[in-house]
């Protein structure tokens, strides 16, 4: 059976070039980079190249730090808890400004910190589904605020937040800014000089690198305390024997992802738009968020009368991987928070399915998906108790 992977916002295929570059660090150059002997030191040049690529990939300066972590969840935890220990617990700045649509590795850490005495304020989304600069200005009280933490692009809708403007403003009033850039890297240009953030989290497996390795950018001088203690790794900022293969893979993956950005914005976008047009040509469908506000690979679509999980079940039967954050789906019964926040008709909040492409997606795969999707939507609407065509 043909298999089509359209869940690239969840994880991606490892680029074969990345895998090849990593291979030598398993059975040949397997030394611990902290060792004094040659087994340890012979991996240092590759680590240097990896760091060079990561620094270049996001525009970090030499005096800044880009530490290698195990995942973006660790990076997000590190930043938020460092802010808690270094700022919230020690000063009168108790507040973290964030959004209602952050990944759980931000939102649930905030919830945890709230129980420890932090004050968490969620900025409302505007009608485009993003937080705009005006809203941030209206809510940001510098003397009370320890950190602003806003994702660069949303995982479910693909909507891009105006990080450059918001980071610039936040900096100008003397408040720290963190962004979870997991869904941005490899999809849009990310540069910490143009968008002056203090902390930026990313994860290799979202841009065709390996799982189990992520990164955290820390601007020079930004408050910091490690999450993991117990060694001198990463300059004492993140203990734990360094995942050399993962670090090498992430560095190359970052470089390749940035090189592929023009392709992402032409070819991936063209295929995404083709699928999106096909979805919109079915009756009673909608796509969340304006196309020009989204990363080029993502579609969050709603099919009236069709429950999201039922649809991904059907697609899976034909080898197509898509996902949903709606009530019946996944292991949670919560309605999709992004759509609720955006103010989409509550009835539609359980009908959302996300398709996310990558530079490995082919036209043939998109054509096949359109065919299967059309049939599945028809079948499920025939069973549906709530769907009557053109009900409005």
């Amino acid at each position, binding site marked *: 059976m043909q298999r089509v992977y359209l869940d690239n916002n969840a994880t991606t295929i490892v680029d074969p070039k990345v895998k090849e570059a990593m291979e030598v660090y398993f059975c040949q150059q397997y030394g611990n980079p902290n060792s004094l002997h040659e087994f340890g030191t012979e991996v240092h040049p590759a680590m240097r190249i990896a760091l060079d690529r990561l620094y270049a990939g996001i525009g970090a300066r030499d005096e800044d730090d880009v530490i290698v972590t195990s995942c973006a969840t660790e990076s997000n935890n590190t930043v938020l808890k460092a802010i808690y220990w270094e700022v919230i617990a020690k000063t009168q700045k108790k507040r973290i400004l964030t959004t209602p649509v952050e990944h759980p590795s931000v939102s649930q850490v905030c919830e945890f910190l709230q129980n420890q005495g932090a004050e968490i304020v969620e900025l409302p989304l505007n009608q485009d589904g993003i937080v705009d600069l005006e809203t941030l200005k209206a809510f940001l009280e510098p003397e009370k605020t320890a950190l602003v933490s806003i994702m660069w692009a949303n995982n479910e809708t693909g909507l891009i937040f105006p990080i450059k403007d918001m980071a610039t403003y936040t900096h100008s009033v003397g408040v720290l800014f963190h962004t979870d850039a997991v869904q941005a890297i490899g999809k849009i240009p990310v540069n910490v000089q143009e968008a002056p953030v203090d902390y930026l989290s990313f994860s290799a497996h979202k841009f065709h690198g390996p799982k189990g390795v992520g990164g955290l950018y820390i601007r020079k001088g930004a408050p910091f305390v490690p999450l993991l203690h117990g060694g001198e790794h990463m300059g004492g900022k993140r203990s734990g024997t360094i995942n050399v293969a993962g670090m090498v893979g992430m560095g190359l993956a970052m470089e390749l992802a940035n090189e592929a950005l023009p392709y992402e914005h032409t070819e991936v976008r063209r295929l995404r738009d083709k699928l999106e047009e096909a979805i919109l040509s079915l009756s009673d469908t909608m796509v969340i968020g304006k196309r020009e506000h989204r990363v080029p690979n993502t579609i969050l679509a709603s099919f009236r*009368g*069709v*429950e*999201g*999980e*039922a649809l991904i*079940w059907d697609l*899976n*039967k034909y080898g197509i991987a898509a996902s949903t954050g*709606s*009530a*019946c*789906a*996944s*292991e949670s*019964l*919560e*309605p999709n928070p992004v759509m609720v926040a955006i103010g989409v008709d*509550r*009835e539609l*909040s*359980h*009908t959302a399915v996300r398709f996310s492409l990558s530079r490995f997606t082919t036209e043939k795969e998109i054509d096949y998906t359109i065919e299967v999707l059309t049939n599945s939507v028809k079948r499920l609407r*025939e*069973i*549906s*108790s*709530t*769907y009557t065509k053109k009900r409005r």
Partner: protein
Amino acid sequence: MAKNQLIGGALWENYSRKVAERMDNPFYRGELTEEDAKRMGGKLVIADWGAESCGDAVRLYWIVDPKTDTILDARFKSFGCGTAIASSDMMAELCIGKTVDEAVKITNLDVERALRDAPDIPAVPSQKMHCSVMAYDVIKQAVAIYKGVDRESLEEEEIVCECARVSLRTIRDVIRINDLKTVEEITQYTKAGAFCKSCIQPGGHEKRKYYLVDILREVREEMVKEKTMTEETKFSDMTIVQKHKILEKIIDEEIRPMLAADGGSLEIVDIQSTDNGKTLVYIRYLGACNGCASAMTGTLYAIQGYLNRKVDENIVVYPI
């Protein structure tokens, strides 16, 4: 289960083959019309439950023979996930051939059990049970419509969770039938509390008459009381070990603290069951009780009387 939980994401893998088959090809999907009813000589009943905004909605069609109250045919339509569709399909199948009064007794557990491949492996994971609860509720709705019970009177039912339209009765039943122990389980089974969360506990964005935490506590207390009562009646049939456990617990919690106030205590030395249903409990006094005059009179009567009241009237206590 621990390893499965560590791997995670195993929702669909835990569906039975029957659930998957009925999701892919539900036998009883579709509608029944007045014409079908006329042809079969029955009365058409159409019942709706749930709402699209809650993520699950089901419509049940019956044709009922008005003379015998037998359900001649059933169909359904569903807005819901695979489990919702499969449960509705099985529910429709279970209705056919039953009388309306028999059908009203079909519970979500009957539907779930009928969807199992093996008798002791659940057909769906627990967070999907709410889909079969829908099937249970829509039958009740159909019966109400068939019997001509005023819709208004149905609305008077105490609704605990407005978002998911879950009644007090459903919540109490589901806790009891499934032996639920946490609010999260109630939410998984019924969807009550999954949406605005106001009904979970006081302090939500809306004030409610009932809260899940209170209902859960009350029902659990009732269940414990009932269980203790059953245990009381069966005390004489228990093994020595079971008797010892119960006696040791009550002595430790209720009697020793009283004796301790006077610097004494006691231990159980032996327990014997006699043929005529009596339980002989041999105790040894410790500390200040040892040698106390009252130990053979007032204190002894008090201990025996207490055990007779609380555990079994045929207990006789012997100090040694």
